[in-house]
């Protein structure tokens, strides 16, 4: 991360540290001077929002872990104690529980942004694959976190999801026994889920750091999907994007706070306030909303192993996306046909989510099957073909050209202003 002009720090302590461990130079380079395409819109703020969510989840999770007890006999009661007796326990738990949903909202918008503007295409393939790994780590973390309150949905969600692995021939049953540490979901399972739920966010944090590092190699994509050609196409990250992202974060936090304070249980399930009972399955098991599209895919396939493979395949296909999409044009703005299919995919994801919340019978089973078929059709057939068949619109010569009509003038103040703060 060497650069042409290293910043001059006035503070002698900063200077002393920086000459021995150049973290201030690095921060200046990555978060102060880092050139952002000048045309990015508010959809580009969701990466920052997701990052803030991870920090909030780790902070609230840490203090909740100090009050929670991972044992089947007292787990449920310890959560109720957090709600009733612990100072601000109710707030911390609601911030944490709703935070999971907000984290997924931010990440799903972030992903669809990437899909729409072709952010996964060369040279950002590894950046995208790291993103898919982040999604997987998030899903595992969220699933195990939902088990910890040891309510009915916790217990039966854990039973259904761990049983997915029994679908694999021969190794399936030993794997499930190993995951459980017993012959059913029980205390050993709860204990290890707590340990892993504590560990995985830090794995997630490591992945996020790699994701950001990969991003800062290729630079951010932008709504036109063309590369920045020089300083006239970019603005420094600070103050332009810090302010813009900061504003977006505040708006998002208002939305988040509305759930925390006015509808803290809206996104949850009332059955999870019933203590876990291994002898009674709730009439209707549903996962949290962010898993519903994948749950619909699981149930759409009438074969157990097939359903499991389709569900994992729905995520694996995302990792292969940079090679499935054969079009050289990144942004949907210049892909009139793909743009329409993008919106069909977005609707398809919502329909799958709705079907996943409904009982798997009758018309909803049919809807889930059609939705699943379209999902895989979109990625496996449509995208490879469309890149060859579609005629994209002409791309602008540069990012600033459509705005400045070819003037290419350096944005006033963007680069003239000397850096004042480290």
């Amino acid at each position, binding site marked *: 991360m060497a650069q042409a002009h290293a910043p001059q720090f006035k503070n002698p302590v900063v200077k002393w540290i920086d000459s021995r461990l150049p973290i201030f130079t690095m921060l200046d380079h990555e978060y102060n001077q880092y050139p952002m395409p000048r045309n990015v819109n508010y959809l580009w703020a969701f990466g920052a929002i997701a990052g803030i969510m991870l920090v909030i989840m780790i902070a609230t999770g840490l203090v909740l872990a100090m009050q929670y007890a991972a044992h089947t006999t007292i787990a449920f009661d310890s959560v109720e104690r957090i709600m009733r007796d612990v100072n601000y326990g109710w707030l911390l738990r609601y911030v944490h529980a709703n935070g999971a949903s907000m984290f997924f909202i931010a990440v799903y918008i972030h992903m669809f942004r990437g899909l729409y503007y072709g952010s996964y295409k060369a040279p950002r393939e590894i950046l995208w694959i790291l993103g898919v790994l982040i999604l997987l780590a998030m899903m595992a973390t969220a699933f195990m976190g939902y088990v910890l309150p040891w309510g009915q949905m916790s217990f039966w969600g854990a039973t*259904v999801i761990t049983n997915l692995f029994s679908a694999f021939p021969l190794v399936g049953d030993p794997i499930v026994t190993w995951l459980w540490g017993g*012959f059913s979901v*029980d205390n050993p399972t709860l204990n290890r889920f707590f340990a892993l739920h504590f560990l995985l966010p830090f794995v997630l944090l490591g992945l996020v750091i790699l994701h950001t590092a990969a991003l800062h190699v290729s630079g951010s994509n932008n709504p036109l999907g063309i590369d920045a050609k020089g300083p006239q196409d970019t603005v420094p990250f600070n103050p332009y994007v810090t302010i813009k992202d900061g504003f977006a974060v505040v708006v998002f936090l208002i939305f988040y706070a509305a759930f925390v304070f006015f509808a803290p249980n809206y996104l949850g399930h009332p059955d999870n306030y019933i203590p876990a009972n*291994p002898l009674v399955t709730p009439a209707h098991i549903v996962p949290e909303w962010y898993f519903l599209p994948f749950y619909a895919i699981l149930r759409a396939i*009438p074969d157990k192993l097939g359903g499991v493979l389709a569900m994992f395949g729905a995520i694996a296909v995302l990792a292969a996306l940079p090679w499935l999409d054969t079009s050289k044009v990144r942004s949907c703005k210049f892909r009139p046909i793909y743009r329409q299919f993008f919106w069909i995919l977005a609707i398809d994801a919502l329909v799958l989510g709705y079907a996943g919340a409904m009982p*798997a019978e009758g018309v909803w089973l049919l809807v889930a099957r059609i939705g699943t078929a379209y999902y895989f059709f979109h990625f496996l057939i449509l995208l490879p073909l469309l890149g060859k068949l579609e005629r994209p619109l002409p791309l602008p010569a540069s990012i600033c050209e459509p705005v400045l009509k070819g003037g290419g003038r350096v944005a006033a103040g963007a680069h003239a202003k000397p850096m004042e703060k480290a």
Partner: protein
Amino acid sequence: MAQTTHPPGTGGHAAPGGEGASRRDFLYLATGAVGAVGVASAVWPFIDSMNPAADTLALASIDVDLAPVQEGQAITVTWRGKPVFVRHRTAKEIEEARTVNLGELRDPAADDARVKKPEWLIVVGICTHLGCVPLGQKPTDPRGDYDGWFCPCHGSHYDTAGRIRKGPAPANLVVPQYAFTSDTAVRLG
């Protein structure tokens, strides 16, 4: 790999033509193999610690008194943390279970292979799809299209011998190990 990093004949003591190189290759492979075995044996305790512990494995078998269970009734007992269904089948239910054409079944099993006494059906009450507890134990429960059990989670139907008949489950309800200790008592496990 070894050939590229250590070309034959450059080691001084290695004879040209590859004898020394192949000896060195052998040493690399042998060292690598010992290392791999060492890593695997060091990792195994970590993995195996997550398997069921001795106290979990030391499961007491349980005795169930069948005397109070009238014909047509069913009870659920807990064994190894799982529900076990004990159903006192009616003559009609036994008849239904016996007259099925085995060729039609997804997981073919004759009724007498699944019971020790025809009137007592004992199965683990866990759906073989994704582990829910099927309904059908209480008189008010739905029993599915085959008078056995119905799993509300994903819609699997089991018949009066606990065999899968319809829905996503791949296999019949599991018959646990058990033995009759008297005419009206059974020991599970």
